[in-house]
């Protein structure tokens, strides 16, 4: 899951990035509204954390503009402005949620998960695919009754696939969302990690969940 932080205070970015990366999210950041606008428009993110008082273009304006351009990425506004009018203004501009500063990091994570969940059909933190269970809050993965241990990158890849279950995802898209940058098409890091995942999830089970779609990419599904 790839998250963009648009915030002009470097120190706030620092701890959010640290905290989110510890939860296996991929984090990108920019320091002003204009850069944020271009990034949100031109790259794929699963969530945008947006400050309101930003240099060059404020958060309300940015939200309105990217929504006008058809970007549907969920937006969570983070701001010191906590009046009802501000919240209404933010939500009306097209933000999905509003969290006043200072906030508890647990709450930020919970809201992040809720927003990511909302983009799919899932209604709880646990994603189920056949007998595979992924708890997106505790990051525990189990197939049947068997718990599976994973590295953070494997988990991030699995979660991304699972959130988009039954959808064919290209290698480029997977690389963007899980690693946070565009890979040269020559690299096969996605294929390598898919292989690791298959070993842990599908090996020894009759039902194979991870499928290769020739010429297109991968998908996970029953």
């Amino acid at each position, binding site marked *: 899951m790839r998250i963009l932080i648009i915030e002009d205070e470097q*120190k706030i970015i620092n701890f*959010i990035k640290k905290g989110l990366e510890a939860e296996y999210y991929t984090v990108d950041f920019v320091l002003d509204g204009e850069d944020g606008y271009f990034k949100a428009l031109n790259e794929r993110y699963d969530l945008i954390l947006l400050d309101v008082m930003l240099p060059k273009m404020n958060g309300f304006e940015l939200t309105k503009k990217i929504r006008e351009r058809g970007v549907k990425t969920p937006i969570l506004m983070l701001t010191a402005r906590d009046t009802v009018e501000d919240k209404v203004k933010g939500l009306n501009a097209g933000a999905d949620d509003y969290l006043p500063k200072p906030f508890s990091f647990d709450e930020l994570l919970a809201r992040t998960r809720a927003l990511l969940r909302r983009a799919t059909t899932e209604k709880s933190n646990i994603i189920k695919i056949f007998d595979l269970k992924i708890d997106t809050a505790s990051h525990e993965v189990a197939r049947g009754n068997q718990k599976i241990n994973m590295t953070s990158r494997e988990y991030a890849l699995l979660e991304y696939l699972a959130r988009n279950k039954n959808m064919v995802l290209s290698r480029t898209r997977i690389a963007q969302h899980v690693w946070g940058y565009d890979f040269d098409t020559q690299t096969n890091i996605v294929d390598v990690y898919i292989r690791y995942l298959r070993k842990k999830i599908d090996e020894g089970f009759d039902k194979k969940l991870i499928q290769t779609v020739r010429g297109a990419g991968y998908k996970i599904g029953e």
Partner: protein
Amino acid sequence: MFKSFKTKLVIGYTLILVFILVLFSAAIYTYAKQQTYSRIDQSISHRLEQFENNNGMHFKGLRGAGKGVGGGQTFLEEIVDSQGKITSTSIFLGENEIIIDEATLNQAKKEPVITNSLLTDDSMVRVGIKKIDDGYFVSALPLYESEQNILSLGISLLVANVIFIIIALATGIIFVSRALKPIKTITEKANEISSGDLSQRVNLKGPKDELKKLADAFDKMIEKLDNLFKGQKNFFADISHELKTPLTIARGEIDVALRNQKATKDDLKNALKNAQEELEKMTSMVNDLLSLARDESYKNELAIEKISAKKFLQEIIDKSENLIKPKSAEIHFDDFKNFTFRGDKKKLQRLFLSLIDNATKHVSKRGTITLKAGRRPDFTVLSVSDNGAGIPKDDIPHIFERFYKGEKSTSGGTGLGLAIAKNIAEAHGGKIEVESIPDKTTTFSVYLPINHQSSASSCQSPGET
């Protein structure tokens, strides 16, 4: 009772009108009545004279007399003896008699009398009595017709007055309503504004009369209030932003560190250090805010004392050691002939430490900060100069605003230091001026008025060098 100004105005104006009209009508009425009576009296006295001239033919004369005299009216006449008994009457009297009392007869003994009286059928007459040889000659003209004329004149006047007053009342109401309409507009706007919408203005159209001036003055006042409230709102928004940012960082650092079960000792130490930094920033911000609030609420409570200029500058240099250390800047004051001035020493120290703090942030490493003191006819001038990068021209009008930080400012200050400095200077009745030549020198000059100081203080204090 008459609550509306409009009603009061209309009623007042109508009352005056009624008064004038009544007075005027009464005058006309009285004049007309007088004229009528004097005409009648003239006729009667003429008749009495005539009678004298035709003495001796009175009985016959009475029978046919009267016609053609007194404007076409018929004289009613009789002759009474000295006891008041009627001896002869003119035929026009018919069965009537003219009633004359004794007192009138007595009066008429000396000279002819003209007075009001009645006939026996109660109709009013004007009567003239004249003494003749063996009694009195009485000649009367009926007043009925004249009284009728006067009465109808009175009624006409009354009706005319009533109509006139009704018209005046109606036009008065229309005129006053129109004239007072701007007041209604102003009232409505004032109500809208007091319900919270300070962006409203009256914007009265029309000629530049008193009401337009009132409306304009009102608009000006609202403009000022609007700006004041906006300023206050912005100030609170700024405070909340400035205080919440360090809080967010401190809390975030701690939250993230506590969540991380694999955190090393260094990770934890780092998080605590970051949080500590933010708490320090918040502490200085809260201190600055408090002193700003104190300065503002106790603007007039200065602990004024006599201050030696040289000693004052030396103390500031000693106190600023910690401020200039990070940049290893050099600070000194240019020598001058010492003098004393009056002011609140503690507050002035804070003012200069704020200016030095600000200067330190702008000088490059090992820069120079120079303090100066001097006297002008009306002011003591104390200044702080630095040879740093200078302040961009566009920023200069704003640097004394609270929380203003220049576009390129990376100084990390609270943004309150200069606002505090300005407050202190103003509390002393003085001011601060800035002059900045980019990349060369920036000077903050503090002007303290001498009239704020007693004449005694201009002498040198003893024991100073």
